[in-house]
């Protein structure tokens, strides 16, 4: 018997998954994204770091077109971002997003939160969707909370459900926008552990975070943003111990000795 390998994790496919080319975006007079060039390859984990207001969230949101861009190109897995309608919805399903404020559907149970997209977007059978949802909830450690409503969960639990909800769509890439910033300190690690696990399993991830422990242990690359520009890119150790730009040095000195 020859072993047939089907799991995609077994063969680390290569190639560029997310490509941004000279992306520009304004909010009125504010030039919030300035000539952003960024390429993320399959399986890569990129941490985006930078001062508040530097455009990190806008960058994330532009990647699944929650925010439109003024010029430049963004493509996911070789396909340019569609304008609107069905094609855009399909693309969004392939890009998982985890928000700072969790944004779980407040009127649905935890289980329903994780099933909704599978049933309505992927057209999965209800039973199949439920099994998958329960497995994912188990994986992020909140299986026992399946029948509760989001408001009954702690922040850390809600964020792990949000990760499960995004994973339920089998995304090609996961975007995390400061996933632990709204959490009480004692809950940060339970979320970071889930993310670390994901990174180890080969998920392509773009993570906006100031958690340096996570960046050092899980990231392949750190992207430093300031004033709407990518100022510096480096492997985590090099960036944290030996930043090149003054902006990065200044920023790191602030978050290191607060």
């Amino acid at each position, binding site marked *: 018997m020859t072993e047939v390998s089907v799991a995609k994790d077994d063969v680390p496919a290569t190639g560029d998954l997310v490509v941004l080319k000279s992306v520009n975006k304004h909010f009125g007079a504010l030039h919030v994204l300035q000539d952003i060039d960024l390429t993320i390859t399959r399986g890569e984990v990129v941490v985006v770091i930078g001062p508040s207001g530097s455009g990190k969230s806008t960058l994330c949101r532009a990647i*699944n077109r*929650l925010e439109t861009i003024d010029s430049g190109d963004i493509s996911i897995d070789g396909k340019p971002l569609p304008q*609107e*309608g*069905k094609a855009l*919805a*399909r*693309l*969004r*399903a*392939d*890009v*998982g*997003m985890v*928000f700072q*404020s969790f*944004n*779980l*559907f*407040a*009127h649905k149970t935890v289980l329903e939160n994780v099933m*909704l*997209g599978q049933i*309505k*977007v992927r057209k999965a059978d209800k039973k199949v969707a439920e099994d998958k949802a329960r497995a994912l909830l188990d994986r992020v450690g909140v299986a026992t909370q399946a029948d509760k*409503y989001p*408001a*009954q969960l702690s922040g850390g639990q809600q964020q792990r459900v*949000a990760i499960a*909800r*995004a994973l339920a*769509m089998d995304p090609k890439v996961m975007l995390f926008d400061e996933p632990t910033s709204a959490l009480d300190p004692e809950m940060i690690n339970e979320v970071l552990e889930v993310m670390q696990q994901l990174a180890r399993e080969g998920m392509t991830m773009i993570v906006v975070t100031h958690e340096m422990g996570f960046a050092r242990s899980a990231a392949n690359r750190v992207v430093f943003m300031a004033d709407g520009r990518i100022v510096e890119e480096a492997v985590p150790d090099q960036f944290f111990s030996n930043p090149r730009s003054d902006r990065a040095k200044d920023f790191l000195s602030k978050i290191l000795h607060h």
Partner: protein
Amino acid sequence: MRRSSGRHTPGPRHAEAREIVFDFLEGYDLLGAFWVTVQLTLLSAVGSLVWGTMLAAMRVSPVPLMRGFGTAYVNIVRNIPLTVIILFTSLGLSQTLGVTMGAADNFDTQNFRLAVLGLILYTSAFVCEALRSGINTVPVGQAEAARAIGLSFTQVLTLVVLPQAIRSVVGPMANVLIALTKNTTVAAAIGVTEAALLMKKMIENEAQLILISAVFAFGYVCLTLPTGLIMGWVGKKVAVKR
């Protein structure tokens, strides 16, 4: 006929008194008239909830034309007196344009349907605005998360935003429905034989003005009070916790 005159068993003398006091009700189909009022209310309620929801969807739609239509509709319709709208359905639609509502040979049915149409056109503007204020209570993050998992605009609205918006406006919606119940009296203007028309007729024929008014007031309260109570209870029950 011997009967103990206990406090709780109405003796013949009570019955006699009642007969005299409520004498004026005789010969009038009070229940029938209120039944028409109930029918007007229920049909118009269903219609305006449906059309009002569609209007609210238009008002938050990304398509400018739809938004424009929704806004124009609400601002025009809610500023026209209901009597004018009801008269318009009768004089304008029916008598001028020949809209018969599928009942060309039966004037009563035709007028009833025209009144329902008018009430729907009018009430839906208020349903729309109540719903829209409910939509505004739903945090934008809810819609963004829904878009982010790949739901279409319609799905975001019907699966995530509206269910939460509706839960938060059960109370205001009760006000709209209570107002609708009372507004059905305007249908009398085009001859629909609902409670208010009967009241007018009775007042013309009978002497007990205050009693007649009281009976009808009581009838309307019987219809509206449960609406408020039940919807207040439902509103608490379905409220979304955040």
